[in-house]
């Protein structure tokens, strides 16, 4: 199998699996318990917390564990229930849907923007986006407080007036792909997920800057210093820690920038050269996108069909065209970016991981041109121009 859907989930690393298997018996105790087995389990949890904090420039006390990115995102949105929430259509549904439901007109204000997009991998200039959003929505009346004062440029601390605005970023897709420093990004909150880095599904984390508000989503326990109730998922958090440690030790962002980028760029180049009617939705210029994501569209060929023809050849990718329940919705991200439903319906996302090889690119290009050609020939849509 050629697996190129790493942006959806990364197969669990063997060392993660092994550590979790061991933990099931070794660290079975409730980590909140005061006895020795409970204490040992808590030690393991704290170990993961320290590794994550170290990787993102935070203090361990600023990290809590959750059941995943959706819970982390929902926790932040619910903290700002009734407040002004600025976000974008490029976000994950766990932000968009909850923001729609809980936004209001009170202050403080919350800005929530991803650093990199899930579907096309675009790296966003959060500082600029927050600045622009503030410009549009700042109250003009002289009586209103100046709620947001961006004082620095990209890459430097973003200073916010604590009376007025806070910034959250969903960093799920970028963790391990590019270096992250929550202070440099000017963040008050950040979301992470274990299964995007080779850890288990069902474990996430939330960075909460010291001193900023937080309303727990799950109440009823003193865990995480009353910031998230519920018995600790010790085994899952141990798995997350092993994946984080590997990421740190091998400096995965450097591998993504070199070996993974090389494969992604080669696939992009070959698709454009060998497949008529193809176009890239990802800007592969260094710095513009995550090095492991390539989103491409194929004129007159429908994404789900392309995906399943590839699937039948043992090549696993994803599409921005989801056909379900009589309602065929193109990707909200591609629609927001391109405004072109045909481009969105004809899109395929190839996402690479550290295990991807040159052979994967070759296998894709052995079959993809034929699949596209056939779909284009039986398509009701005329090809606009031959390349």
């Amino acid at each position: 199998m050629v697996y190129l859907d790493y942006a959806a989930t990364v197969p669990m690393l063997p060392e993660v699996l092994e550590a979790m298997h061991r933990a099931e018996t070794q660290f079975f105790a409730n980590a909140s318990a005061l006895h020795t087995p409970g204490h040992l389990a808590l030690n393991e949890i704290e170990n993961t917390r320290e590794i994550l904090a170290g990787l993102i420039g935070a203090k361990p006390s600023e990290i809590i564990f959750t059941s995943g990115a959706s819970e982390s995102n929902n926790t932040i949105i619910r903290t700002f229930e009734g407040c002004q929430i600025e976000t974008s259509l490029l976000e994950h549904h766990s932000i968009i849907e909850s923001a729609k439901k809980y936004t209001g007109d009170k202050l403080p204000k919350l800005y929530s923007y991803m650093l990199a997009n899930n579907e096309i991998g675009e790296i966003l200039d959060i500082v600029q986006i927050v600045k622009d959003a503030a410009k549009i929505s700042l109250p003009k009346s002289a009586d209103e407080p100046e709620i947001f004062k961006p004082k620095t440029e990209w890459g430097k601390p973003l200073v916010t007036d604590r009376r007025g605005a806070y910034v959250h970023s969903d960093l799920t897709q970028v963790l391990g792909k590019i270096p992250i420093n929550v202070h440099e990004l000017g963040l008050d909150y950040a979301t992470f997920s274990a299964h995007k880095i080779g850890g288990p599904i069902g474990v996430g984390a939330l960075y909460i800057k010291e001193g900023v508000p937080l309303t727990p989503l799950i109440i009823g326990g003193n865990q995480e210093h009353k910031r998230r109730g519920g018995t600790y998922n010790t085994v899952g958090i141990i798995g997350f820690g092993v994946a984080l440690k590997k990421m740190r030790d091998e400096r995965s962002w450097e591998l993504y920038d070199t070996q993974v980028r090389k494969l992604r760029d080669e696939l992009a180049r070959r698709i454009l050269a060998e497949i008529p009617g193809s176009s890239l939705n990802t800007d592969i210029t260094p710095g513009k996108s995550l090095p492991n994501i390539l989103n491409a569209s194929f004129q007159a060929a429908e994404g789900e069909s392309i995906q399943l023809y590839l699937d039948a050849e043992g090549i696993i990718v994803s599409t921005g065209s989801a056909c379900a329940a009589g309602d065929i919705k193109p990707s909200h991200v591609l629609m927001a970016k391109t405004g072109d439903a045909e481009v969105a319906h004809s899109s395929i996302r190839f996402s690479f991981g550290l295990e991807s090889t040159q052979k994967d690119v070759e296998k894709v290009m052995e079959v993809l041109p034929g699949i596209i050609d056939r779909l284009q020939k039986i398509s009701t849509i005329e090809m606009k121009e031959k390349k």
Partner: protein
Amino acid sequence: MTDQKCDKKSNNMENQDWVYSEIVKEHFLRPRNYLMGDESKFKYDAMGLVGNPICGDQMKMYIKVKDNKIVDIRWKTYGCASAIASTSALSELAKGQTLDDALKIDAKQIDDYLGTLPKHKFHCSVLGHEALADAIKNYRDK
């Protein structure tokens, strides 16, 4: 593989190595009666068109009619795997039928023919049926 696209009807998923049943897979990977390339290659008497690429699927059905019977049939589609498989199945069911009988082929029959089209893909089989009805209407209106 994941067990997505599974519904009550296809409760034999654990025996499958693909998201759809073998027969859907067969019609998707080796569709019958499709029209490849330029549509002028097929001398048809009437054509039906439904759907819109903006919505993600569009279907064209071409029929050749003799003595009130569909003697040959071709189709083109821009659509998902289920749309391709169900149109392929429909073309097999309609070939050789009288126009009246062909009109009676409904989505349920296509679904039964394919056996295990997931419920959320049912509309895909309706699309082919509508394209055929449109072609027959166009033939009769001539």
